[in-house]
């Protein structure tokens, strides 16, 4: 693997879910949850993934984590095709990636102590040669996420939401992963605690060089933590670029609407609000042409027939809109 090869390389990924019908479960159709998505993540980088519910962002994260079967396309981690890993090979590589979930209440086993929750990962991957070494490692992990080593003996219910998310992060870090898929990790938290967790994730990245795929619906949070951002709509990438460019000069009308819909505190920065009509169509029955055209304020005849390709509009900034070039002045 060369030094500048990406840590994660996703090519033309498709994930389809069957829609079953009747007693015998005859397949009636397919939901194209992910419909041809490509991107890369460099080592130590944060890639933000935004979009509204049903756009496929969570499925994408889960597909990369091998929690959902992919229909076609490839996911390469460290230059190796993840789909080809089986058995012992897979077990040996499982510690390369981890997940953090939205709900810190449901993603920790209530019957296990915090020490056991973190220690389980160490044991499975045979990290630490004996119990004493593992205890020391658990203490160190808890301290690295801002908790007390003594918390190892407590149970999840004894912690607040923010502290539980810290436990989830410590568990993910236990196996020293190269990539952490963060699925809405701060959406369930209060604003003050949300800032703590965002800062913690950034500190840990600097210390350990771990890469994040940061999935969230909050554009301001994603912009803050990510170097680059992907915007998804109906299973497709509609925009991809440097975080500040995507937010400041969005090229896709959907991103423009998303940015304008964020309620802003500062009067000066309050933008002309674009209120989209309607809602995202069902991924079972996506519209022909551009998936966004039924809600797009600038759709023209061409948009109803021709699917726009994701193309580079300015350096490293991609958008899937026929008119992305003239959308610049927003």
């Amino acid at each position, binding site marked *: 693997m060369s030094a500048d090869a990406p840590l994660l390389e996703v090519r033309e990924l498709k994930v389809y879910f069957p829609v079953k019908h009747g007693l015998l479960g005859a397949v009636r159709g397919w939901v194209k949850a992910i419909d041809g998505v490509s991107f890369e993540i460099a080592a130590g980088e944060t890639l933000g993934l935004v979009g509204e519910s049903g756009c496929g962002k969570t499925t994408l994260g889960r597909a990369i984590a091998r929690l959902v079967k992919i229909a076609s396309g490839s996911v390469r981690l460290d230059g190796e095709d993840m789909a080809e890993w089986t058995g012992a090979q897979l077990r040996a590589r499982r510690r390369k990636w981890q997940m953090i979930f939205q709900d810190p209440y449901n993603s920790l086993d209530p019957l296990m102590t915090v020490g056991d929750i973190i220690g389980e990962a160490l044991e499975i991957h045979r990290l630490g040669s004996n119990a004493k070494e593992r205890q020391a490692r658990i203490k160190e992990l808890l301290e690295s996420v801002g908790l007390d080593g003594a918390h190892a003996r407590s149970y999840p219910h004894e912690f607040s939401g923010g502290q539980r998310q810290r436990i989830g992060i410590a568990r993910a870090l236990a196996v020293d992963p190269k990539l952490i898929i963060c699925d809405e990790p701060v959406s369930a938290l209060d604003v*003050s605690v949300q800032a703590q967790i965002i800062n913690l994730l950034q500190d840990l990245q600097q210390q350990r060089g771990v890469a994040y795929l940061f999935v969230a*619906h909050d554009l301001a949070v994603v912009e803050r933590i990510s170097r680059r951002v992907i915007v998804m709509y109906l299973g497709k990438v509609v925009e991809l670029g440097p975080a500040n460019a995507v937010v400041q000069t969005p090229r896709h009308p959907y991103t423009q609407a*998303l940015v304008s819909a964020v309620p802003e505190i500062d009067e000066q920065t309050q933008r002309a609000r674009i*209120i989209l009509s309607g809602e995202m169509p069902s991924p079972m029955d996506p519209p022909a042409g551009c998936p966004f055209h039924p809600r797009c304020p600038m759709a023209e005849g061409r948009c109803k027939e021709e699917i726009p390709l994701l193309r580079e509009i300015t350096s490293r900034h991609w958008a899937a809109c026929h008119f992305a070039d003239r959308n610049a002045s927003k």
Partner: protein
Amino acid sequence: MLEIRNLQLEFHSDQQTVRAVDGVSFAIAPGETLGLVGESGSGKSVTALSIGRLLRTPPAFHAGGEIFLDGRDVLKASKRELRQLRGRGVSYIFQEPGASLNPVFRVGAQIKESLKLHRPQAATDEEVVRLLKWVGISAPEARAKSYPHEMSGGMQQRVMIAMALAAEPKLLVADEPTTALDVTIQAQILALLKDVQQRLGMSLLLITHNLGIVGQMADRVAVMYAGQIVETAPARELLRRPLHPYTRALMNAAPRLGGTGRLANIPGNVPRPGAMPSGCRFHPRCAMARPDCSVNAPELVAIENGRQVRCPYWNSP
């Protein structure tokens, strides 16, 4: 329109008595929007539920204070008076519209039920359709026959708003009405709330944790922390110049578009109602705390332009 004076609200259990709301006072004028801001556990939702006496007793007890809605004392109202106050006086919409709608009835029937209770002379199919149309539901005749689960979260919230509007309330309480919705749908619902408020001239109590929504919607704002109001001000002025250290910290902790650098976080956690810190309730997390802050509990004092702040050092650098 609404006046709450020194509200004290307690929750009793076998083990302990917890004071969730401690001396909250505010008023809302006809047609005005008050934003009530705070994090979880601040007491903002239970304060709002008290207005319609919607908290079950026990465990909730009103330990003191008064709530006047349209001139009537809610806490002393009889059952019959309460029935009149709920609906025509105050209606509610909540964060999870799916949990507030009855899953086994068609949405049209549920709106009609609300009409029967509060405006019986208008309990017709035509009025149901008119309300659905008003809240922006396309093909309202067909949609009236839908069940809640056949609708998206945004549509369910529109139905909830239609049900609330069926009573033509003087005050609408919207408790985190868009928190569960996507941001483009949130923009639609906020625009709708503004529109119906203007047309009906009703007052709006908007509970939110999002200061951006406050800036967009509210005339005035009250910030709650640990069961007390720590600051009230006209919304624009508060966002331009927050005075209480908690309000300032909250604004700095919220990521904004185009923002860079590290977020200023507030250390620690919101205190639990059973374990309030001594003195100022915010002092353990306050960057500006002084030694006496852990001893003296500050009062909410009026300072200027209708602003109030619960911090004796608001004016110090």
